[in-house]
């Protein structure tokens, strides 16, 4: 009989599920994770330093490319900080357009997440459907901004493109279709037993731990922590737009799923409000090239949580200091905590459930084994497949659901 021994497995840095190189080191005893270590740094590109050598305009394009999922969050957070220092009075219409793009970004990001989460647990049909639906919002973003990602919509003092009446109609049509589809996902999430069983009681984070460890975004809101920068420290047009902050008391991955689904529905509301209440007026004010000495802290609710930018200006056309703290960095310790004493088979979905943007935070997770074991190196894909198989043996099998799941076929 094989004695469960402590052994170490290193996962990564080739990490298909997270789509970035990361390194996880897990200390295992049999199937249980005793401890998880995180080694970050594979995506460190030296952006903050680079900003000091670039003008504010050049820096804007660099900052936008910190993350290819929440590019607008970084671009807007940065632009807001600089505008505050320089006292540029951004017109209302521009604030509304920024908000529109921000919510469309949240929609694409959450749909992307749903698909990735499905993939992690073996529910690949969900990936195909959500990413198909996501193309609706990608088309809207491309129509409004000229690109599917890295929208380049922001400029100092406002936005670079206006929105036409026809485009407004397209956005409303697209949102209607997306809302229809999302309702179906909400239904599946509330009724499909296989999915509920798979995600419930997994990745549990007590509310106190969420607060202590500084978790942000849907990860924290799923623990009943009602924090959302759009409400607590409003920016852009959010101070004028009615919407609800979605929370759950479940404190597990299922709760995080419900929160993101709820946020999708709220985003559709916000988008409609923006379209119907878009103020007239200019889309930008003239902005000087040089920014007077000063500093500003800018906070933004990115799809993953609070994004923080700090900028210090020195009177030239280049910043003195740019500091970025992307949301995933705040959730990393929480994730290590969630996986203590949990099964290896749950690792992929628990990590995925914080919606890690390792590019934002440039992280590499290494799991170190403490026992007298032999080190093993496996890929994330192997852990993912192990997870799917393990749960299949324990009664959670997505084979049938993959075969039968349909979404919006009649449309």
């Amino acid at each position, binding site marked *: 009989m094989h004695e469960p021994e402590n052994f170490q497995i290193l996962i990564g840095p080739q990490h298909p599920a997270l*789509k*970035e190189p990361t390194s996880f080191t897990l200390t295992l005893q049999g199937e249980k994770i005793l401890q998880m270590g995180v080694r970050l740094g594979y*995506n460190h*590109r030296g*952006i903050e330093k680079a900003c000091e050598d670039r003008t504010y305009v050049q820096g804007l394009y*660099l900052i936008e490319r910190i993350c*290819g*999922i929440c590019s607008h969050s970084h671009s807007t957070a940065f632009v807001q900080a600089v505008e505050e220092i320089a006292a540029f009075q951004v017109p209302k219409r521009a604030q509304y357009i920024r908000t529109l793009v921000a919510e469309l970004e949240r929609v694409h990001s959450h749909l*992307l997440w749903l698909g990735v989460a499905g993939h992690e647990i073996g529910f690949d049909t969900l990936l195909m459907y959500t990413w198909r639906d996501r193309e609706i919002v990608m088309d809207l973003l491309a129509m409004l901004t000229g690109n599917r*990602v890295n929208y380049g919509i922001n400029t100092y003092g406002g936005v670079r493109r206006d929105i036409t009446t026809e485009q407004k109609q397209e956005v409303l049509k697209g949102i209607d279709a997306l809302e229809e589809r999302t309702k179906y996902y909400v239904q599946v999430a509330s009724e499909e037993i296989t999915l509920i069983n798979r995600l419930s009681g997994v990745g549990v984070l007590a509310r106190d731990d969420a607060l202590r460890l500084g978790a942000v975004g849907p990860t924290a809101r799923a623990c009943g922590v009602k924090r959302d920068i759009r409400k607590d420290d409003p920016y852009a047009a959010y101070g004028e737009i009615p919407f609800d902050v979605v929370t759950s008391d479940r404190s597990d991955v299922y709760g995080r799923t419900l929160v993101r689904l709820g946020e999708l529905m709220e985003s559709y509301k916000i988008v409609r409000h923006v379209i119907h209440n878009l103020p007239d007026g200019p889309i930008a004010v003239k902005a000087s090239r040089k920014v007077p000495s000063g500093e500003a802290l800018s906070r933004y609710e990115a799809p993953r949580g609070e994004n923080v930018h700090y900028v210090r200006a020195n009177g030239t056309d280049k910043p003195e200091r740019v500091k970025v703290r992307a949301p995933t960095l705040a959730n990393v310790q929480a994730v290590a905590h969630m996986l203590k004493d949990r099964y290896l088979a749950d690792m992929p979905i628990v990590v995925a459930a914080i919606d890690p943007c390792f590019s934002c935070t440039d992280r590499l997770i290494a799991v170190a084994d403490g026992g007298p074991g032999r080190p093993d190196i496996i890929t994330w894909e192997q852990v993912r497949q192990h997870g799917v198989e393990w749960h299949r043996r324990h009664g959670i099998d997505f084979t049938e659901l993959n075969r039968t799941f349909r979404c919006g076929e009649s449309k």
Partner: protein
Amino acid sequence: MALINRIVTWARVRSPWILHFNTGACNACDIEIIAALTPQYDLERFGVLLKGTPRHADVLLCSGPVTRQIKDCLVRIYEQMPQPKFVVAVGTCACSGGVFKGCYNVTGGIDTMLPVSAYIPGCPASPTAIIDGVVKLLRSLEQSEQQSKSAVGV
């Protein structure tokens, strides 16, 4: 030997197995690569399959400007791939370093470390551009197969 080569090329052109590797990218290209595999774009109709391991891959799809931490890993992965193998640089960063060129932790494009067979620019490279690039690579393989055929007078 020539017959084996032709069979291998035929198999590769009909169904190349792809390994995707991110060398420090912002994720945008990575998402678009995966989007290229979803039904709307459906790269799989070209017989392309995404594999998780270098030992079974014909084509290494790379995104990102190569960071210091990842460069040795990138080379190791390439070395694990069996011949013949091809590297595709997806996105402006992979082609040249993009906006990150000159940053202290970044080497530049993929071709600072590996020989690149195809460059797919874009920030990010769109799924249609990725498909276009991969298909062009396959066609060039087909053409070199044709050329070797005519060279041996078949």
